[in-house]
């Protein structure tokens, strides 16, 4: 698919997803649908889908250890093995997985291959993807954990710590009065910046542009939509008030927490005064959850099951029996001859073992032939 088509398609889909709750809540007042039913359905699909995918992966055998690793395998005593990059035991695997899951080590290894000096290939140190991926994932994690303040009562201490750390920056009246209240939280802006970079990178590098599909653009735009609605609600209310004289962005967070707590305690309520933009935010999050298990976003679970990362390279120490080795049906030549001996004899084909009946027949017939 042409990349412009792919981008257009994704933008159109995300726009439709924005308009559904917009019209649903603003015009038809379906607050209960978008505030209760859709989020519950989404979380149910999310859990079931993830279980389905993970169990599906767990049912696929990985019979042999895959030694595509960047370190020296454990072999002779005088050759120094690389215990983390080519682990021979569970400890090394845990360290390697921790590096992969927490620090994205595979992305750190990224190099770009280009012709820089005529026909000479150069491999360049290329860490921007790794940096942006770290920024994106960790800021998203912080944003998600911060949202626990809406879902817990009393709020656990670690949520306060994260929020204090995230909100250490005080901007006064910059960039305009009212923007930085109640408190700037850096993670939201880092998230948007990283998403923008990852999108532009996809477009800028011709190879990634060529392999990018709507399945790559759609989650990017969806998360950009979620982050944007969140930022608008938190920061842009005063600006809206100033420009249009009406504030459609700010939502009363006490009421939002009542809604969230209702969902969590299974006593759903729909409080008053929550603007449509909140339902758009919630609907996009619900879509993300429901879409999650069936998309590339499942790498969240898949990274734990990557066979090149989570298996120790002990092919030389432990015998791994292929689990799909079943007793193969064989048909040996002896069995073949037993089955077709008479027909073979009749056709005059040589046989190794002559059965008594056919031997008699044969001698009889040969005698007759001799008489004649």
């Amino acid at each position, binding site marked *: 698919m042409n990349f412009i088509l792919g981008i257009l398609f994704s933008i159109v889909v995300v726009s439709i997803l924005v308009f559904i709750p917009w019209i649903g809540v603003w015009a038809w007042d379906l607050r209960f649908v978008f505030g209760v039913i859709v989020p519950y359905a989404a979380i149910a699909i999310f859990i079931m889908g993830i279980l389905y995918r993970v169990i599906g992966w767990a049912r696929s055998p990985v019979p042999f250890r895959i030694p595509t690793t960047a370190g020296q395998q454990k072999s002779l005593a005088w050759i120094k093995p690389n215990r983390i990059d080519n682990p021979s035991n569970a400890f090394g695997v845990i360290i390697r997985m921790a590096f992969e899951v927490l620090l994205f080590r595979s992305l750190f290894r990224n190099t770009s291959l280009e012709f820089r000096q005529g026909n000479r290939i150069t491999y360049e140190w290329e860490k921007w993807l790794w940096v942006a991926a770290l920024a994106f994932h960790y800021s998203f994690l912080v944003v998600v954990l911060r949202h626990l303040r809406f*879902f*817990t009562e009393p709020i656990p201490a670690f949520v*306060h710590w994260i*929020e204090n750390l995230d909100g250490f920056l005080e901007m006064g009246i910059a960039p305009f009065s*009212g923007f930085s209240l*109640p408190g700037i939280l850096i993670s939201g802006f880092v998230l948007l910046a990283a998403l923008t970079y990852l999108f532009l990178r996809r477009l800028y590098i011709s190879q990634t542009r060529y392999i990018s599909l709507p399945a790559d653009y759609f989650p990017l735009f969806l998360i950009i939509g979620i982050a944007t609605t969140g930022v608008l609600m938190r920061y842009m209310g005063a600006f809206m*008030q100033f420009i249009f004289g009406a504030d459609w962005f*700010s939502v*009363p967070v006490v009421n939002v927490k*009542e809604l969230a707590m209702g969902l969590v305690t299974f006593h759903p309520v729909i409080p008053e005064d929550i603007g449509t933009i909140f339902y758009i935010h919630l609907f996009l999050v619900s879509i993300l959850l429901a879409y999650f298990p069936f998309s590339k976003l499942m790498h969240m679970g898949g990274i734990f099951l990557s066979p090149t990362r989570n298996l120790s390279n002990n092919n030389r120490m432990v015998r791994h029996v292929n689990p799909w080795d079943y007793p193969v049906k064989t048909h040996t030549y002896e069995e073949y001859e037993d089955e077709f001996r008479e027909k073979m004899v009749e056709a005059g084909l040589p046989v190794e073992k002559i059965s008594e009946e056919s031997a008699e027949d044969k001698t009889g017939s040969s005698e007759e032939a001799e008489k004649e």
Partner: protein
Amino acid sequence: MYDGVKIIIGIIIFLVLLLFPAWYQVGKAAKVPDPKLAEKALKAEQCVEPKLFMKTQHMKLLDEWRDEVVRSADRYYQSSSGKTYYKSLQVTCMDCHSSKKEFCDQCHDYLGVVPYCWDCHIEPKENG
């Protein structure tokens, strides 16, 4: 299923983390914020601006007031209702909303908000 034990342990960890808000709540009485309006506030019927505006924008209003008062000694606020108010947290706001504990803290604690008003202003001493 291959490595069934590990897979099931992983799934259990995932579900426990995901459903943290649900099981964290069990057995805890959900405290609902109950900001009490003092008599004077009840009598006034409306705050400086309409209720929803105050709910979502009071921090921005206070911030603006502070800047205008401190930087340009501009002490009077023209409300959208036409009334004029004296811009002061302690003199105007706290005159009606006299109890920090029963008014401000109700929602702020509920949402884990720690406003920095009291870095400079003297926190009213309340018992209980």
